[in-house]
């Protein structure tokens, strides 16, 4: 049982790291042949940096688009960040650093996490437009996240405590390759299994929005096409090969 679980965890991590890296390399290597920044477009690199920061940290465009989706989505994502930080302590090899010990209160982020996810699920079910565009995987993704959050909350707040000593040594063992016995509480097993499932499907699902946003040409381009020439490798090749070309002669040719 333990061996199987440990194998699954590593496999999930491996799929995630390799898969996401491959995707990032693909995005990196795919040229953006034309300048297509979307208004309000920044004219400088600093401007692009500010725009990207506003999108990543504040979800600015989404705020403009739909206040409810923004509210649920934003609190969910920030809660996820806080909970992620709090979980680092479990995996930290050796003595947990001072900073991470102070993140105990981050456990309350699980409430906004669940509220956010339920809100997003509600929109998917009750708003006819959003229902129309939802595939089964869109619901499953939310349900998966809710299940991870809920199982975590049950362990934290509802007295389904697992053996914390075992939890720490299991988690640390994954990092230090010094594997130890798996806690046996089903709820803990469910939590770990679902969390690593989420990690595994990262590169083959819409979770690719996380790396994707940084490569989005409408958001990351500087609006300076007149001043600075922007050309992709394949278009340059066409140009050198004179694939499309109008011969220039001194006389007009009509």
């Amino acid at each position, binding site marked *: 049982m333990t061996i199987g679980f440990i194998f699954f965890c590593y496999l999930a991590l491996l799929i995630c790291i390799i898969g996401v890296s491959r*995707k990032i390399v*693909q*995005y990196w290597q*795919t*040229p*953006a*042949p*034309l*300048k*297509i920044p*979307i*208004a*309000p477009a*920044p*004219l400088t690199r600093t*401007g692009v940096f500010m725009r990207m920061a506003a999108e990543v940290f504040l979800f600015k*465009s*989404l705020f*403009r*688009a*739909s206040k409810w*989706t923004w509210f649920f989505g934003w609190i969910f994502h920030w809660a996820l960040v806080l909970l992620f930080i709090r979980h680092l302590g479990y995996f930290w090899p050796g003595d947990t650093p001072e900073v991470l010990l102070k993140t105990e209160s981050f456990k309350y982020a699980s409430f906004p996490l669940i509220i956010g996810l339920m809100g997003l699920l509600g929109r998917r079910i009750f*708003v*006819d*437009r*959003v229902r*129309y*565009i*939802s*595939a*089964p*995987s*869109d619901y*499953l993704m939310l349900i998966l996240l809710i299940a991870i959050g809920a199982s975590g909350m049950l362990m934290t707040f509802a007295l389904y405590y697992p053996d914390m000593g075992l939890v720490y040594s299991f988690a640390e063992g994954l990092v230090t390759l010094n594997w130890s016995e798996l806690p046996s509480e089903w709820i803990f097993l469910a939590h770990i299994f679902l969390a690593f499932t989420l990690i595994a*499907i990262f590169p*083959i*699902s*819409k979770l*690719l*929005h996380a790396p*994707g*946003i940084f*490569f*989005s040409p*409408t*958001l990351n381009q500087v609006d300076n096409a*007149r*001043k600075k*020439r*922007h050309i*992709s490798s394949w278009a340059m090749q*066409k*140009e050198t090969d004179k694939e*499309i*070309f*109008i011969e*220039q002669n*001194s006389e*007009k040719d*009509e």
Partner: protein
Amino acid sequence: MAELEIDKLPTYLEIPAIQKDSMAGDGPFKASAEIQEQLGFPGEKVENWQQIAIEKMAETTSKYRSVQVFLDACVKCGACTDKCHYYLGTADPKNMPVARQDLFRSVYRRHFTFAGKYFPKLVGAKELDDAMLDDWYNYFHQCSQCRRCAVFCPYGIDTAEISMAAREVMNVIGVGQKYSNQILGRINKIGNNLGMPEPALRDTLLDLEEEIEKETGVAVKLPLDNKHAEILMVTPSADFFAEPHIDGLIGYAKVFHQSGVTWTMSSYASEAANFGMFIGSYDVMRKGALRIRKAALDLGVSRIVVGECGHAWRVAYSFWNTLSGIGGGASDEYALKLQKQLDSNYPQPQHIIEFTYDLIQKGILTFDKTKNDHRKVTFHDSCNVARGSNMGDIENGQFILPREVIKAACNHFVDMPKATIKASTYCCGGGGGLLTDDLIELRIKGAMPRMQALKQSQENDGVNTLAAICAICKSQFSKVLPNYDFDPYMIVSVHQLVSDALVLSDKSETKAEDSL
């Protein structure tokens, strides 16, 4: 036309409940074999079209980061679902930007992603079959590529990029749209979208000169193929014949006249519009841009100015430097020659609004604003200018400069509701290759959000004039305004307002010599 039911404009714009298949159909007329072959596309749907289409999709995703990232990144959050004017006007769910993209994305998932290959039902992956291709043709020709959805998408996903990609795939398998491709054939052969040959163009311009002189008593010229001119003016060919466009052209001529700068148009490149963008073809677009470079070189001009045309300005501002090295940084022989020839004191290319605005700033133009006192003017931000370009090289200049030019010529200017202008502007409903009578129902319904905003301004502020800087917007509004009980003549060129108020002087010859 008579049988088409158009709902009365609502007091407030409401998001409609979805009505499946309300715009189902065969789409616009398909291009004939002759039209297709002119552009190097197959004349008829090829035998193994599915295979060719999938191969083309693979090529597109490997050449366009936008398409690759946009297909992967969408989380179906729904932010865009109520942003498209065609959805708001038709309630067909496939006109929601994300659903439109999903027509393409579902095929991408089926053929190019792990989840779609092995769990198609789970992730909504679908095969590119006859029904899907029909949907592609119908609904990718219900997108005007106005990019409003992209403003609201948290990842900047731009449906225009997807609809361009889809149209290119369809062209490659021999399923092209008649309207766009026929026009592209004309521009490649004759030099403008109308297929207007040089003698006809020359006649038109002479007529206009006469008309202006008769009306104003001043000899304002509209030169063609003048090799000694400083400025090459490239304008949409609609400016040569259509109403209200032609009054805008007269406006440019008057501004040039007052500026004292010599200018010319080219009979070889007598078209600023570049429909290559609508069909997503880099090559076709490049060909159009190269024509203009050639004209600039042949005429030996030192500046290039672009007339009032929305997507033309996007292509000129954002793409020309990339496509044909008009600007700076290109290294082929003719681009280098052009760089030497063009005056680096000015942005290249420059929009006519930028040109006029500069003259206003320098105090060179004098206006009698009372000439426009019968007008209460509002400004329609054309989508491609608003969301795909800039003017004046200042942030949001594309919103500021046209308004300043209008205010310099008119005493009464008022904006439409905030949610419907600038970056959030609603498309006129006729852009992106849809300005054709076989799509008239779509065009009328898609204009509804803009018409609703206009009605609000009419009721609250007494607006009676709608100014625009796009040939497609002007044609589209002339056609659809009456359907919503507006005066079809209320749509004008910004340079018509300039033209009406500009005080002309007859000293252009001496001025011209000074500036040379």
